[in-house]
């Protein structure tokens, strides 16, 4: 089936089998390997991308469902050589160790801060409930989200 998907403001036209998962489409057909595959069972959130401006687990969306729609992946976050405020905050606050969960985590945090510009610690933890990190114990991630919220408020 022929589909046309806009990813990070660039339009891609490809032919895919209906059973192709969005995460495989992004990684293998488009070469956008920043979106990671962790559990492949809708649990870990490593494959989180934005579909029409809301976060989804791309292992649990079919590529054909994204036909005609807009997607943002981690590759679309930085612009003009400048890191996105959330990326910058993760870097400054050491919000990662191995980094495997980070692309998905950053997408979820971006949505969280769009929905709630100054979340409490509890709201932050609730907002990233769909993203598992097995390294940090989340503390530095929560710190990074708070720093990103401050940076965005000051910007």
């Amino acid at each position: 089936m022929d589909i046309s998907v806009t990813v990070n403001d660039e339009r891609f036209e490809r032919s895919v089998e209906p059973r192709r998962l969005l995460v495989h489409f992004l990684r293998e057909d488009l070469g956008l390997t920043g979106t990671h595959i962790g559990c492949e069972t809708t649990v870990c959130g490593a494959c989180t991308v934005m579909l029409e401006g809301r976060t989804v687990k791309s292992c649990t969306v079919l590529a054909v469902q994204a036909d005609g729609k807009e997607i943002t992946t981690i590759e679309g976050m930085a612009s003009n050589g400048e890191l996105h405020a959330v990326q910058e905050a993760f870097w400054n606050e050491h919000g990662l160790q191995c980094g495997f969960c980070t692309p998905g985590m950053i997408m979820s945090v971006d949505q969280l801060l769009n929905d709630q510009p100054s979340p409490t610690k509890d709201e932050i933890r609730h907002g990233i409930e769909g993203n598992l990190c097995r390294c940090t114990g989340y503390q530095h991630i929560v710190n990074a989200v708070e720093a990103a919220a401050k940076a965005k408020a000051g910007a």
Partner: protein
Amino acid sequence: MIPASFDYSAPETLSEALQLLGDEEAKVLAGGQSLIPMLKLRLAQPARLVDLDRIPDLNFIAEDNGTIRIGAMTTHHQVESSDLLAEKCPLLAKTAGHIGDVQVRNRGTIGGSVAHADPAADYPAALLALEAQVKLVSASGERVVALDEFLVDALTTSLEDGEILTEVHVPVEQEGVATAYRTLIQPASGFAIVGAAVRLGVSNGNVSFVRVALTGVGPNPYRASAVEEALEGGPANAEAFAAAAAHAAEGVDVLSDIHASAAYRASLAAVQTRRALEDAAGSA
């Protein structure tokens, strides 16, 4: 984790969708948050998926003469963040906020969840307590069915071949009725091990209205009639709540699995019911 092959259609009208469902081993795709995992595990291998996402009139929340109608393709996130529901049917909005996680709520739909009939889904507890109805449409007509008649068994409903669930109907909450939803979740999946939904009206210190429904306890979510009967007309206090909640799993074939034994689940049912009653009483 790759599904078996299937054909895919994304009709733009309901009548087209009904037609597509008629002619082969076809299955409806809503948000896909239960179906796609089942396809990947090859627990489901339909010949065709009929995606409802491109049918514009299936995504809405509207009030009509004391009834709130919710389109089948309305996402959990939309239910959770609806101002109309927060004001007029808060139990449903707060229950939606408990489902899965943020990404699942962005994608999963109320119609998909209800039609899938997972015995541990969150919605049925609230919807049974609300005495919700579902609207089912087929090529030959439509019918509106009470949810407790719609839910037959685990993953089994009275939806017939060629029918599509298009709407969920809930009442505008009554004046003076407070609500609560309590759940203990299985932390990896986010599914309720036990969830208890309560609607409680208190007048002059006595229970004037009560509805209690549970999910996750047995093969089917259910109204806990024994709890309701124990409370109706009696005092609305902690002792009465605890005594009534002890009936929460009465007559139920309680599930046992790696997350909770039947005895533990039955005990959890009583505890969550008591806490939900207390929450509702506290917010009244």
